[in-house]
């Protein structure tokens, strides 16, 4: 049987995080009353003209630079013509022959740790369409144009992927980069990042590309993986049976976990692209591009390398912290204030992320980084033990007070008063004659138990060094 090789290229649509739409000042915002964010421009009334949103272009350029693209000083808008009720103008303003960005690349790692370069053919800007609703109507559709005219960028790769792991790594990295740059929130489930893979297979060792299938309706990372894997199997079985593959568009059915035919190539749309006469060519002067390059946020990879060095963290910890820009931002703000990277990292990865996971986001987490830093400082200076610190942290979740004030109010500070500790030690020794005897007979381990009992008696607040010393002294004394 022939051994096949997978060949995949992907197209990604990403919604740009601007405040207003691409060609009009309507708010770029979701969840509003239907058609609340519309105006004559995005409703395509006669006589209106589009004006480009500067921030949308800036975000696109930012993404292009991060993906090592050439940013073209001149690009052009084009009309993509098709009729559908979600597109009031009868055409979508997009880019065709002259996109803003070309010739980029991103390195990916597959499951064996092998690195390969994926070439990015182009990144262009375009407007999104509106939304059709079908619920509760039988004879037609309802149209909400709040999304019509909001800015999208389309990223197109070359067919350079040879494994599903590479696609997965690419999408993960891309999402992270776009989130770090605040260009797109990268939410595939909600459709703010949509991915369409072109999938084909060919006998291993051959050069010619096989017949490709474009897969739509992918709305999670998992669906991307499953969808591609499914297509590889489907196409392999067909070729093995001697059947011919057709170039077609298929949809992914997440529930059935299978792809279904949407249309074959012969039915492909004829979009009759042409330059949009309403918009002059898009000219980006090199000074502006340079300015964007200089003010671009630190990217995930260099940022990870830096925090490993700066805070003395290991690779695994840095991976966890850098997985989201909101987490690494939180960590760095706290670590700088606390003056202890390692300890802060442990707290962020432990208590903070655990509490966030239980509900909410790190952005809205009630313990802001400066308060966490104060808590870490209290541990560092020996004012409270780490056990007590967890108790204080619990209280901070519902109290706006500083950890210092909480420690004060709850009487949680470390007790280093020797008299008070000595009293507790004396009690423990009188309550545990058997353990004291065992220790004196040479069972050193028992000391841990006795100190533990002492700490319990002191409600976790005893200075551990003093408690240790006094307990040892007292036990030794009882030998006599």
């Amino acid at each position, binding site marked *: 049987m022939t051994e096949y090789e997978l060949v995949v290229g992907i197209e990604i649509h990403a919604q740009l995080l*601007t*405040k*207003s739409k691409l060609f009009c*000042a*309507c*708010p*770029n*915002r979701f969840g509003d*009353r*239907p*058609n*609340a*964010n*519309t*105006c004559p421009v995005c*409703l395509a009334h006669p006589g209106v003209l589009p*004006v*480009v*949103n*500067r*921030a*949308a*272009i800036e975000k696109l350029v930012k993404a292009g630079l991060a993906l090592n693209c050439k940013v073209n000083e*001149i690009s052009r808008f084009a009309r*993509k*013509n*098709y*009729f*559908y*009720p*979600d*597109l009031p103008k009868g055409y*979508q303003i997009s880019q065709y022959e002259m996109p803003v960005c070309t010739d980029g690349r991103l390195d990916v790692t597959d499951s064996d740790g092998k690195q390969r370069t994926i070439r990015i053919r182009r990144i262009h800007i375009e407007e999104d*369409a509106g939304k059709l*609703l079908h619920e509760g*109507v039988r*004879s*037609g*559709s*309802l*149209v*909400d*144009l709040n999304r019509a005219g909001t800015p999208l960028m389309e990223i197109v790769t070359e067919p350079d992927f040879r494994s599903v792991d590479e696609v997965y790594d690419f999408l993960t990295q891309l999402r992270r980069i776009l989130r770090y740059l605040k260009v797109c929130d990268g939410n595939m489930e909600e459709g703010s990042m949509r991915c369409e893979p072109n999938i084909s297979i060919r006998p291993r060792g051959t050069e010619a590309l096989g017949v490709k299938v474009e897969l*739509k309706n992918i709305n999670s990372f998992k669906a991307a993986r499953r969808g591609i894997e499914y297509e590889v199997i489907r196409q392999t079985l067909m070729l093995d049976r001697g059947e011919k593959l057709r170039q077609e568009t298929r949809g992914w059915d997440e529930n059935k976990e299978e792809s279904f035919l949407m249309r074959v190539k012969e039915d492909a749309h*004829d979009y*009759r692209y042409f330059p949009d006469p309403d918009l*002059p*060519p*898009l*000219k*980006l002067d090199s000074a502006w591009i340079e300015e964007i390059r200089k003010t671009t946020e630190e990217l995930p990879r260099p940022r990870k390398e830096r925090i490993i060095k700066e805070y003395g963290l290991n690779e695994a910890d840095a991976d966890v912290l850098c997985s989201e820009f909101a987490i690494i931002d939180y960590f760095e703000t706290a670590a700088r204030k606390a003056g202890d990277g390692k300890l802060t990292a442990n707290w962020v990865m432990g208590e903070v992320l655990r509490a966030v996971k239980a509900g909410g986001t790190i952005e809205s987490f009630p313990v802001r980084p400066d308060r966490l830093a104060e808590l870490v400082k209290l541990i560092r200076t020996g004012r409270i033990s780490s056990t007590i610190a967890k108790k204080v942290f619990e209280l901070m979740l519902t109290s706006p007070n500083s950890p210092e004030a909480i420690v004060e109010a709850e009487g949680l500070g470390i007790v280093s008063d020797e008299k008070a500790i000595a009293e507790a030690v004396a009690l423990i020794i009188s309550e545990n004659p058997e353990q004291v005897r065992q220790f004196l007979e040479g069972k050193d381990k028992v000391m841990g138990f006795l100190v533990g009992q002492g700490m319990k008696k002191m409600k976790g607040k005893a200075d551990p060094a003093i408690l240790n010393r006094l307990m040892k002294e007292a036990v030794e004394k009882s030998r006599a």
Partner: protein
Amino acid sequence: MFDIQKIAKLARLNLKPETESELSTQVKNILGYVEALQAVDTSTVEGYGLSDASPHFRPDEPVERGDPELRVRISARTQGDLFFVPKVIGEGDA
């Protein structure tokens, strides 16, 4: 050459067979005019808009549009704040 029926389909026009040849001639004339324009030597002319020094951008400042009712009610048919359109099957998506 072009296929007048295909163009009609793309434009969502229902073309009657008896008007086909007349329309074909008209479209051919229009295209002929464009072809005549294309024969002009423009090698010394800079592209449209390329000489314009500064691009015209809009700042990213959203403007609230208020009650959608005013904009929706001009439609032939509505349902609440939504436009109503007849059923469309099997076409569309970009």
